[in-house]
C-alpha cells in the first residue's frame, strides 16, 4: 500500500462545531451530508484505505476532531454510510453492517480507469496478474495502485460482463486479459 502523501487537508466544515451534529433542518442536513460524504471519500482516497470498520472509525481522526472536541455519533456515522451506499460508494461486508468497503471510486469508475490504463499501455490481449496491476512498478503512479484485491476482482468481473476483459486462474493466483 502506498503511504499517505503529506497530511490530509480537512475542509473548513471539519472545524465547524455543528458539522458534528446531524442537522434537523432538511436543507441544512443535505448540505452537511454532502460535505461529509465527500470528506469520507477524500479521506479514504488520501489514506489509500478501502475498508472502514464502523466501531473503529469512532477513534479515527475522520470522525473525531480533537481540536474542537467534537465527535460524530455512531448513529450518524451509520446514517452517512447508508447515504454513501445509495450513491454506490459503500458496500457492506457483512449483514450486521459493521464493516464496509469505501469505494471512493465506484466499481464502474474503476472499470473505466482500469480499461483506459490497459488500452493506453498496450496491455490488451496480454495476460496480467492481479498483483502486477495493484503492486507492479508500472502502476505506481496510478489511482488503483494498492487497490484491495477483492475490489479489483469485482471490477474485473464487471468488465468481464461488458466483454472487455476475462479473468482466469493462474495456479494459485488469478490473471486477467483485457480485450
Amino acid at each position: 500500500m502506498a503511504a499517505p502523501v503529506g497530511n490530509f487537508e480537512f475542509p473548513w466544515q471539519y472545524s465547524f462545531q455543528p458539522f458534528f451534529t446531524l442537522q434537523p433542518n432538511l436543507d441544512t442536513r443535505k448540505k452537511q451530508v454532502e460535505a461529509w460524504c465527500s470528506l469520507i471519500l477524500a479521506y479514504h482516497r488520501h489514506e489509500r484505505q478501502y475498508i472502514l470498520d464502523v466501531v473503529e472509525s469512532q477513534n479515527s481522526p475522520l470522525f473525531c476532531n480533537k481540536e474542537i472536541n467534537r465527535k460524530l455519533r455512531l448513529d450518524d456515522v451509520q446514517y452517512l454510510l447508508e447515504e454513501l451506499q445509495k450513491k454506490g460508494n459503500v458496500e457492506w461486508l457483512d449483514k450486521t453492517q459493521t464493516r464496509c468497503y469505501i469505494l471512493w471510486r465506484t466499481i464502474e469508475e474503476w472499470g473505466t480507469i482500469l480499461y483506459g490504463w490497459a488500452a493506453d499501455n498496450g496491455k490488451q490481449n496480454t495476460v496480467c496478474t492481479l498483483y502486477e496491476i495493484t503492486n507492479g512498478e508500472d502502476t505506481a503512479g496510478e489511482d488503483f495502485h494498492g487497490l484491495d484485491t477483492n475490489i479489483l476482482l469485482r471490477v474485473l468481473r464487471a468488465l468481464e460482463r461488458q466483454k472487455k476483459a476475462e479473468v482466469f486462474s493462474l495456479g494459485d493466483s488469478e490473471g486477467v486479459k483485457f480485450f
Partner: protein
Amino acid sequence: MSPRDLYMIVGRGLSRVWRSFWFNNNMDRFIWCDGSLGLGENALCQQSGVRIYEGEDRTSFDRGILALTTHRLIWRDSSDQTCILSLDLSIVVFLEEHPSGFAKSSKIVVHMGPPPSSKAAGPTMTSSSNYIRLSFRDAGETQFYRSFNDVLAKKPWEKNTPPVIAGKASAGQVRHFRSGIVGIERKMQAKHEQTQQNISVAFEDLSNLIGKAKDMVELSKTIAKKIKDKQGDITEDETIKFKSYLLSLGIPDPVTRETHGSGAMYHIELARELSRILEHPLQEQGGMMTLTDVYCWVNRARGMELLSPDDLLNACKMLQPLQLPIRLRIFDSGVMVLHLLSQNEEEVILATTELLNEKGSLTANELSQLVGVSVILAKERLLATEKFGGVCRDDSIEGLRFYPNLFLTKTC
C-alpha cells in the same frame, strides 16, 4: 333602683292579699309549650318529682320534671308527656328558699312580675297569687336553687337573639318528622339550605371586598404612577421596577360571565380585554410572552374575577378573527405564546440570524439575556430560525448551541 329591688320593697310592705290583688292570675304566666328548646337556649339542670303550688294552693301539676334553661323554666308532667308548661325567666323577680321540715318537702318560692302583654295560651286557671311554689319532693332543691339564682343574676335571655338563618334551619329540623324517606329528604334539604346560608354568610365579607375592588384598582394605579415618576430620581432598582409592573396592571371593569354571558360573546369580549391590557406589557417583554405568563398576568390584574385556563385559551383563539394587535402562536414544540402583530415571524428570524452572525454562536440562555425574553421563548426563536435555515445547531455534551448556518451560506 332595679325593678327587682322595687318589687322587694313594695312586695314585702304589702300583705299577701294585697299582693295577690295587685299581681293577679299568677298561674296564667305559664304557657303551654312543646318542650323543645329555642335557639341559643340551653338546658342548665333538671329535677324530677316537682309539684307546682299556685301561691299556697296545690295545683293539678302534681308530679313532673322541672327543667331550668337559660331562658325558661319548663315543667313536664311525668305521666302525661303532652302536658308541658313553660315560664319565661324574664318575668321572675326573685326567689325564696324554704328548707324542708317535718313532713314538709323543701320548696322554692318564685315571685313574678306581671305577665307579658302578648302571652301565648296557658293553663286557663286563674290565680290569686303573685308567686308560685315549687315543691321538691325528690330533693335536689339546693342545687336547683343555686342554678336558678345564677341564671336570674346573669339574665342570659336578654342576650342578642341568634342569627335568623340558623334559627330557621333548626326550627325546620325540629318540626319535621325524622323517619322515613320523606324525613331523610327533609333533613337533606334542611342541611343543604343551611350550608347554602353558611356559605353566603362566609362570603359576605368577600363580596364587600369585591365591591371595593374598583377603588382598590384606582388606588393601585395612582401608586404605580407615583412609583414610576419617582423611578428616575431614586435608582434603577429592580424591585421598584417590579413593583411598578405589578401595580401597573389592574382591570377596573373586568369582562365576566355575569356581564357578558357565556359562549362566544364572552370570549370575544375577553379577547378584546386581553389585547387592551397586554399590548403594553408585551412591548416591554420583547414582544412575546408565553401563555402561562399571560395567564398569571391577567389573573393578577383581574383580582377577584379569575379566568380559567380554558377561557383564556378560547379568548386567545379569538384574537386572530378579531384582527387584534396581538396574536396567539403555537410553536412546534407545543409552547403557546402571545406576540405582538408587529413582531411577525420573518422579522424575528431575520433579527435572530443577524444576531448570530454578529455573535458567532449562541445558546438559548445567552439569546434570552441579549433580547430580554424568557429562555423558553429564546429557544423557540432559535428553533424557528433553524427551521427557516438561518442557523444550525451544535448538540454536544456542552449543551445545545446555535451557529450561523455556514452550510448554506459559506461556499467552499
